[in-house]
């Protein structure tokens, strides 16, 4: 029998996320004994982990900004297949490991086909599960790096993820980290992104109703893009919905990019709603007051 310490990971095998930040794992499991030993080992690796006793919505998982998810399908119950499918579809870049009790070949095949990266059968050694998680994270990271390596060219912009910056020719657009994250998110999406979605993905939390952070940062981003590449419009506002990225040569100078926060500028959706509300507030008739 192997000694307890003999199977500890070597320092070289330890993993942190690609950005050098602490690895964040969520475990959907209700086995207290197994969770205890796993917690200790994850603590030794310097991983942050959250144990939840019931399924978490895919939206909540987005907000947790995870590097990997471990699911016991028995905890999810009969809806486990739909749940697995929803999570893998919503978070295609998230390594998902199923760790559950005895299962049939058909169940394992189904789980893996739905998007799980690995299937570990309980009872298992905690170190084995952690190595499977590490392997899944490594695979995802390699794929991300392979995807990120070539710079993306859109309009006059060259987006270089490895430098966390966009360029026009050799000149940097001078984006801040958050502006770059928003740009990258928009560039890699072929649809209109809702403000709430952008906030969740970039800030990692749910957006409070009325929060204008996304509008403020998109406006700054537009101003910088317009200054660097005045002949192009990159970010388009979809009133009532959000923003979409599509580089098109501009027919006329972009008004929004040129007029920083003038009060006369038509506000984007969040504000438009707010303004309508303010107008209602300020023009509603005075209530009769007891005097």
């Amino acid at each position, binding site marked *: 029998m192997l000694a307890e310490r003999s199977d500890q990971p070597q320092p070289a095998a330890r993993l942190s996320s690609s950005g050098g930040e602490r690895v964040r794992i969520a475990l959907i499991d209700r086995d207290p004994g197994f969770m205890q030993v796993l917690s200790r080992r994850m603590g030794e690796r310097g991983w942050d982990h959250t144990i939840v006793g019931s399924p978490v919505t895919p939206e909540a998982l987005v907000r947790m900004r995870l590097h990997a998810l471990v699911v016991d399908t028995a905890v999810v119950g009969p809806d486990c297949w739909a749940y697995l499918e929803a999570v893998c579809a919503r978070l295609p870049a998230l390594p998902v490991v199923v760790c559950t009790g005895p299962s049939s070949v058909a169940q394992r095949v189904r789980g893996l086909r739905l998007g799980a990266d690995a299937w570990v059968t309980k009872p298992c050694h905690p170190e084995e599960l952690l190595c499977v998680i590490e392997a899944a994270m490594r695979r995802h990271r390699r794929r991300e790096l392979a995807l990120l390596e070539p710079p993306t060219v859109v309009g006059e912009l060259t987006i270089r993820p490895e430098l966390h910056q966009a360029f026009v020719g050799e000149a940097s657009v001078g984006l801040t980290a958050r502006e770059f994250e928003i740009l990258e998110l928009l560039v890699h999406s072929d649809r209109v992104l809702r403000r709430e979605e952008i906030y969740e993905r970039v800030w990692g939390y*749910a957006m409070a109703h*009325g*929060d204008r*952070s996304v509008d403020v940062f998109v406006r700054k981003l537009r101003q910088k893009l317009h200054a660097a590449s005045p002949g192009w419009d990159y970010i388009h506002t979809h009133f009532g919905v959000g923003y979409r990225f599509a580089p098109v040569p501009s027919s006329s100078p972009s008004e929004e990019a040129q007029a920083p926060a003038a009060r006369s500028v038509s506000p984007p959706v969040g504000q438009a709603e707010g303004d309508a509300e303010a107008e209602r507030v300020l023009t509603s008739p005075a209530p009769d*007051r007891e005097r």
Partner: protein
Amino acid sequence: MGLSDLLAPSGREYFALFEQAGTNVLRAADLLDQMLATYPDRRELASDILVCEHEGDRITHDLIQHLNNTFVTPIDREDIYRLAGALDNIVDYTEEVADYLGLYRVEAPMVQAQQMATILHRSCREIAQALPLLRGFRDISPHTIEINRLENEGDRLTREAMAALFDNGIDPMVVIRWKDLYERLEDAIDATEDVANIMEGIVIKNR
């Protein structure tokens, strides 16, 4: 200062100082309204609001100084104290909001905060219009009714804004920052109602 100045109930100085305070309150609220509407592009307006706060302190000091140097006042001493204090409170809370936006490193405004600042601005405009009417103890009720209506709207907005902060999954830092800011904005709007009530009392007592 002669004996006649001490005894004669000449209210010119008091009323002039109150009108200055009204103008100052309106300026501070206008600046905060602009600052939030354009935030974060015009953060420097916070320093102009701070100037208003100092000016408010100066006016309050002059009013109290004047009160200490005269025996007879055109309106109750107590009313002068209370009105001066309530006007000063508006500017103080307004300045706190502007200051906290920078102190808490707020990156972007909330729609509800912009709306509350607009309500505050409107209320202060009513105050600035009502204060000159105190000289002749004329009817200020259209202004006080409007201030009360705006205060009610401010209360409703504050409740909605607070509730929105406690939805699931909101960044706790956002909650801490904005709960504080909403409370200060509400205090400022409440202070405009205090001013309206005091003005109303002065007119009723002296008519």
